[in-house]
């Protein structure tokens, strides 16, 4: 049906530029109102502007961006009681018209959103990695060289915060959005516009965070400890608003995913037949939906402190730094499992394909992930072991923290059981999976040293901690991300990047990564605190080795990106329909996946891991009645 495009559609075509215009307008309005309408401001002797002005400007800039993207058309229509969008409009918004332009506007197609996520994640990863290169260059010498004490802290804060943005969506964003609906056999997410919103909150968040450079930067790192945050210049506001946006995005996508998974599964898709990856996304979504609001509450308090001069975190004014530390880490610790649990799921999803046999201990694997999710809510105070807060509680948090290694160990048991006596296909993704297990093992064992209070008194807040969470996030999640990109690229783009060079790239990134962070583990044990620009001279050799390896790491990560771009945009080799001979539903649908995923209903019979019988997970039932737009 070729109806002439309505005005709304024409505007929607230009969503991205309009959004940027709206962002600028919104910022100017908010800045003017906040600066002049609000009686006075904290740090008013700052000629760049006042905190209320900046904060309100950022908030309205997000609104303006979304309005320009066309997110407000639908709600305003509802408010006016207008007619619901026609089937054509819905199909159009869904990206039915096809074409590359879908990827640059608001669309409700979960597959398009998945790819948008992938691009955004890789952009964040690249920019954050560049920051890491600057940091390592600075740390070549014990005293400031390429940065000043001031810009270095902002550099560290930008690197860490941007990487947290990246990591909190790295797996669940691209692969969760793209494959969960297909895996559970539905044609769409429960709330497609909400899903689009959760993605389109990321670009403003990134821009707002980076704009701190023009406001003097912020010196608190990604933890934003108060009252230092109260003391910071305007750049702090970028951190607060950016982080709040990420928190909102995590929470909303969590709610959306849970609703989709629990209420929209295909016939026969009992919970006990859900692919393990869907289970991991479910657990992660619960973590996100239930933990992110704590962050939002903390950020609101900080915003009040900075704009209305309340004293939530100012001791002499009745507040307490511990309040921020508790609220932040109550979000912060589930957050780190938001990073890794989807990685576990993806790894266990891929293992059976390459070992050609069922997942060993499916139920216990699910139990393990659920256990991680539950435990992660009662461990947050292990970040406060040396803070002097509630010493009598430390044994409990030490115990609960160490308890998490049990469900985590289960994941390894399942992996070993699946690999046991199998004749493994050593494909490129399998290499990255191997790297994941090696790195995450080190990450886990370094964690034990930190969870034990007496040893934590030496290792806390040192580079040992920094290396520990880089082993879990970079060595764990990002390795899983790379494996998943290689594994799913044929389905997502119809292209393959599986070339011999990639195996060299794996070994390069594996060796340089471990070289870097083993050096940093030693630096931490020898007593180098985090986030310092000047350090004791005797630590220089290890820092130099870390930097040299880090350069190699940066180069090899860039190589991965280069191979990806080259293969997808320039070389464009068409991939096989099911190159890994997987039995999963996502590989049974044609490539490219139809706009509405299925034109015949999938009916699930079993877990998609029956490689002994070779029986696919789902049959395809009768054809779906045709509908407009499809």
């Amino acid at each position, binding site marked *: 049906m070729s109806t002439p495009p309505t005005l709304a559609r024409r505007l929607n075509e230009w969503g991205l530029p309009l959004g940027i215009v709206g962002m600028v307008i919104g910022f100017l309005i908010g800045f003017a109102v906040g600066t002049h309408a609000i009686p006075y401001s904290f740090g008013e002797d700052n000629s760049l502007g006042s905190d209320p002005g900046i904060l309100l400007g950022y908030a309205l800039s997000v609104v303006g961006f979304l309005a320009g993207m066309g997110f407000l058309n639908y709600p305003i229509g509802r408010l006016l009681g207008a007619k619901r969008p026609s089937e054509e409009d819905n199909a159009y918004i869904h990206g039915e018209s096809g074409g590359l332009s879908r990827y640059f506007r608001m669309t409700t197609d979960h597959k398009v959103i998945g790819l948008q996520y992938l691009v955004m994640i890789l952009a964040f990863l690249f920019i954050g990695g560049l920051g890491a290169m600057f940091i390592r260059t600075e740390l070549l010498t014990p005293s400031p060289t390429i940065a000043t004490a001031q810009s270095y802290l902002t550099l560290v804060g930008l690197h860490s915060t941007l990487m947290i943005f990246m990591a909190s969506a790295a797996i669940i964003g691209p692969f969760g959005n793209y494959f969960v609906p297909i895996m559970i056999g539905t044609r769409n997410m429960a709330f497609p516009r909400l899903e689009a919103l959760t993605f389109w909150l990321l670009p403003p968040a990134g821009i707002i965070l980076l704009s701190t450079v023009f406001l003097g930067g912020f010196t608190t790192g990604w933890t934003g400890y108060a009252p230092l945050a109260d003391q910071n210049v305007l750049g702090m506001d970028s951190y607060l608003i950016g982080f709040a946006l990420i928190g909102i995005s995590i929470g909303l996508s969590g709610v959306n995913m849970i609703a989709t998974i629990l209420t929209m599964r295909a016939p026969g898709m009992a919970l006990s037949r859900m692919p393990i990856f869907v289970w991991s996304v479910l657990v992660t979504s619960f973590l996100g939906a239930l933990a992110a609001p704590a962050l939002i509450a903390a950020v609101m308090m900080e915003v009040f402190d900075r704009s209305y001069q309340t004293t939530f975190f100012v001791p002499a004014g009745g507040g307490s730094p511990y309040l921020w530390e508790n609220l932040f880490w109550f979000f912060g610790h589930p957050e780190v499992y938001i990073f890794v649990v989807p990685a576990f799921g993806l790894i266990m999803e891929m293992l059976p394909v390459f070992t050609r046999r069922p997942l060993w201990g*499916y139920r216990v694997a699910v139990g393990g992930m659920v256990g991680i999710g539950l435990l992660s809510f009662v461990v947050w105070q292990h970040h406060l072991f040396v803070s002097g807060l509630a010493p009598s509680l430390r044994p409990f948090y030490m115990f609960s923290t160490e308890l998490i290694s049990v469900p985590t160990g289960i994941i390894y048991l399942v992996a070993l059981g699946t690999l046991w006596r199998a004749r493994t296909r050593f494909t490129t993704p399998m290499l990255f999976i191997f790297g994941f297990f090696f790195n995450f093992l080190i990450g886990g064992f370094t964690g034990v040293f930190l969870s034990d209070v007496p040893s934590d008194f030496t290792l806390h807040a040192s580079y040992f901690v920094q290396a520990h969470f880089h082993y879990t996030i970079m060595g764990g999640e990002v390795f899983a991300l790379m494996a998943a990109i290689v594994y799913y690229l044929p389905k997502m783009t119809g292209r393959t990047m599986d070339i011999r060079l990639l195996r060299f790239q794996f070994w390069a990134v594996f060796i340089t990564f471990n070289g870097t962070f083993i050096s940093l583990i030693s630096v931490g044990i020898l007593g180098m605190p985090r986030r310092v620009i000047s350090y004791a001279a005797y630590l220089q050799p290890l820092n130099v080795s870390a930097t040299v390896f880090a350069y190699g790491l940066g180069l090899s990560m860039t190589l991965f990106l280069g191979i990806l771009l080259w293969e997808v945009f320039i070389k464009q080799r068409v991939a096989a329909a099911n190159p890994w001979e997987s039995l999963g539903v996502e590989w049974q649908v044609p490539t490219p996946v139809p706009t509405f995923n299925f034109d015949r209903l999938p009916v699930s019979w079993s877990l998609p891991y029956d490689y002994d019988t070779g029986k696919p997970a789902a049959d395809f039932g009768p054809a779906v009645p045709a509908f407009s737009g499809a």
Partner: protein
Amino acid sequence: MRNRATAIRVVVIVWLVAAVAGDVALAFGPIPPGQASDLASSESLTILLLAEIAWPVFSAVLAALFFTLVVNKIAPPTAEVSAEALRGNTRAQTAWIAATLVVVLSLAVYGTVALAIDQPGAGISADAAALPMPTSTSQPLEVQVIAQQWWFTYRYPSYGGIETSQLVLPVNQKIEFHITSLDVVHSFWFYALGVKADAVPLNDNVVTATPTLTGTYRIQCAELCGLWHGNMADNTAMVVSSSDFAAWMQQQTTLDAPVMKYLLPYSHTYEPSPTVYGS
């Protein structure tokens, strides 16, 4: 299947050798943070113990991964391969979970006991008054650490509340650090003594340690506290004999004479000024 059995045997033997060798090496290697105080020695003992437990488990998992991945014949990526379908094994799972649980529980118990024995960072102190001058080395000498943006200063209530910018401690004398801050959150890290405690404004964080080795050590701030966090370090902290300590204290008293009349009376916490916002 004979070669498989031999392979298993080889891997197990290799792992045993690696585990034992590693543990022995650990036992003889230097373990941070060293032996400069009772607290530091107990921490390095904990670290050693954890490492001794962690290394064999770590290498065992690695050996198993290596075995399953490599020793099994690796199939080419396209080969039509099949293996018997194992869907799980309750006994193996139960055993694994039980084993990990036991390890975790014993670790937690050990940590709790160690915590109970040498109270590292006993947290906020109850009493407001300063300790009396110790009459024996087993009684603690109170030393206050005042963190401010961006320098540590120290007060000795037993010596008329004198304030110095250098930390000097008598050896073999039990020290009770009282750590507080005048503005934002800092963290006082005396690496060699194994002392690390956050300095929080209007909050008195107590750590007890007995230095056992004389020498010059490094002190630094371990919590991000603003512009000069990286420079908030001092290489001149010293642990000296009690006679040298007395001499140093004498010298400081004369140096501080002009300012003594201005210092606030000693207290465990100090109001930051200005109290809140504004000039």
